[in-house]
């Protein structure tokens, strides 16, 4: 077992453990904080995959914005935070069954796939993934259209979120 595999296993176990805590912990703020740690694990996974840009963006967007947003939302709907009632609905066992089945199915399908044991080729020297990514995102021959559509989507979501969450009574 090489060092890289050890790193991967540690990160994966940490991430999955945190993910498990996200879906099971009773305290929702804790769940959100566990989410942060899961997301951090995923960021490390990106770093291991040589996708440094994704790793940093993961931290900026997910931890810096989305996780904070979650914590805000949990606190704003605070009545339920300290609910002593169950945090799982009564069909939770069925959900668990379905999740296990999904995992089993995916695992089963992956077993039958030939490219599974592929290993990564070394990144060619002098290849700047970030520069290449930037070029492709704004190049008309590549992904400028999805990029622009995503930006429109973000604006729409921004406006929509403000509108939906706007409280006409208080005007704030």
């Amino acid at each position, binding site marked *: 077992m090489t060092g890289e595999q050890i790193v991967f296993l540690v990160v994966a176990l940490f991430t999955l453990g945190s993910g498990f805590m996200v879906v099971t912990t009773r305290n929702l703020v804790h769940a959100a904080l566990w989410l942060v740690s899961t997301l951090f694990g995923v960021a490390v996974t990106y770093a291991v995959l040589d996708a440094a840009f994704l790793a940093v963006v993961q931290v900026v967007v997910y931890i810096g914005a989305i996780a904070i947003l979650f914590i805000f939302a949990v606190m704003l709907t605070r009545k339920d935070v300290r609910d002593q009632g169950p945090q799982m*609905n009564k*069909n939770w066992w*069925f*959900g668990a069954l*379905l999740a296990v*089945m*999904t995992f089993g*199915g995916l695992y089963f399908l992956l077993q039958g796939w030939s490219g599974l044991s592929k290993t990564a080729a070394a990144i060619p020297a002098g290849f700047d993934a970030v520069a290449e990514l930037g070029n492709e995102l704004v190049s008309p021959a590549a992904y400028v259209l999805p990029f622009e559509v995503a930006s429109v989507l973000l604006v729409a979501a921004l406006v929509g979120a403000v509108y939906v969450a706007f409280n006409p009574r208080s005007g704030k």
Partner: protein
Amino acid sequence: MTTETLIWLIPLPPVLAFFLIVLLTNKSKWLSHTVGVGAAFLSWLASMIVFFRAVSVEHLGEHPFESSINWLPTGNSWFEIGVLIDPVGAAVLFFVSITIFMIFLYSVGYHNFGQPAGDHDRAGLPPHGATVEEHGHKHVVPSVEPMYSRFFAFLGLFAFGMYVLVVSDNLLTMFVGWEIMGLCSYLLIGFWYGKESARNAAIKAFMTTRVGDVFMLLGIAFLYSATGTLTFREIFTEETLHMLAGHTTFFGMTVSGFIALLLFIGTIGKSAQWPLHVWLPDAMEGPTPVSAMIHAATMVSAGVYAVIRMFPLLTADMHGHGLTVTMSIVAFIGAFTALFAATIAVAQNDIKRVLAYSTISQLGYMIAAIGIGAYVAAAFHLITHAFFKALLFLGSGSVIHGMEHGVLHTGNHKVDPQDMYNMGGLRKKMPITFWTFLIGGFALSGFPLVTAGFWSKDEILADAFGHGHWAVFITLAVAAFLTAFYTMRQITLTFLGEPRTEEAKHAQETPWTMTTPLVVLSFFAVTYGWVGIPEHFPLLGGLVPNWFHDFVGHTLAEVPETPEFSWIPLLTSLVVALGGLTLGWLYYRNVKSVSEDKLQIPLLKNKYYFDEAYDFLFVKPAYWFAENVVYKLLDQRLIDGILHISGPTTGGIGKFVREKFDLPFINELVGDGSANVTYWFGGKLRAVQTGRVQQYLMLALVTFIVIGVALYFFVLS
């Protein structure tokens, strides 16, 4: 840019201006007139370039500028549209572009741009003037037209129509331009739609020209069915014309003659020839000089232009010098209109109506010239007439504008600023207007040698004489005498002598935007005649080459021969012009008021009772027919009767079907039955719709997994 591309582009700026003004700039008067005048300028510029390139081409007649594109698929071929500039087209484009540009420029001043908004002006009525306070005392100044921008938009559309008509190479697009102008004519006559008279005049103009247009459309359709094309240069080939001339159709006329007649009826409507002349005098209800000028210089010329274009059709079945049936009709209508309108003009007091009848009369001249085969002379007169008649109309507009100034000054709104008997002595108040009007009037009368009108009119008379059409010659000569007479009457009453009213004393010269076009046009009214001096004219002949005859004469394959020079027509035109002018001055010099005018004969004053006659002959019967036959008989008796019978019958059948079939079978068994079944199933199944999103998701997932598993095991493996 190639000349062909340029020709395609000529009509575009005005129509763009129309849309720009209507859609975007209509709130800003300044922007609107800038856009409008700018567009007119661009078109003028392009037209000038095209004109001078056309002039510099040798044998333009054989090799005109033309270009066409496929437009409509017709079965297995295409209907083509395109542009064509041949000598006639170039000559017409020359004066059309100048006059249109001048109209635009003149309108800025005429609609009082830069003046304050009126005190109680309303859209749809002419402006009444605004009160301003200056240096402590109030006075009334002209106010700006409330629908200023709209006016420029209409003018733009009008210019588009005219350019399309001039540059098109086929009858259909020409007809499109023709109809656009018809619409604009309607819109502009009824521009002050708040006035009932303007509304009626607009409807009258539209309806009257419609009569002609229907016949024209019939002619176009006939032509298309006979030849399969509407492109001029394809129709006017030897074979086609020969084929058309060789067959006879209704009334024993040849096909070509009959088509030409139908197309000519369109011209009768557009160029206001007898018997469809009644709309033109009423069209003077539009904003005074501008739309009047459209109806004098530009649009009505389109009718003559169309006939000139159709000239080969007209003469297709001509043998030797004898006139064909169609040509005789054309010549008769032209000559008759020339004389007939001139007599009416003598008794009119409204400064614009005199000019309107004069226009009808002059157009009759051209039509008569075409009727006797002198189409070059007709084209020449068309152009000179356009210049001096535009000049006269703009001059009259300037006079009216000056008079309105006087009216505003005195505040007496009962005084009609258009009545010549309210004027007099204006030459001192409005010198530029006077001198330009004088030039225009002399040109109209055919004042010898210096004015353009003399040369063109003389050429028509010479042609009529030279080809031995005596009746036409005499009629036109008399008409020319009357023309000179009423022109001098108008000048004398308006400008000479002493002011007859207080308002005339306070008339004022108009702004530069109005006088500049006058000066420009008067320049052409004098000089344009010099391009067409016949070679054999004593003394002057040959000094200047007879360029116009050379140029336009080569439009068609065979150049019409110039008749031998003769002293008789020359002397005739000298005598009638000078005689008419002198007599007019002598007689009206001393006339002080309407009652002293001996020529106010009721018959002439009332225009031979044509309006009344048409009212009695067509309008009243039409009303009667609509009321009694269509409404009372057809609608009430016949159609309502049928309805009254069929109604209860269908009702009965319907009731039977309903009771015996619908209610028991469809409703209870099929309708209620299926609803009941659905309801029952819905009741059983609604437990699934819990409204809980997670259960939906679970259900979806279960389905997904089941389908996936099934696919995997039964399909993929």
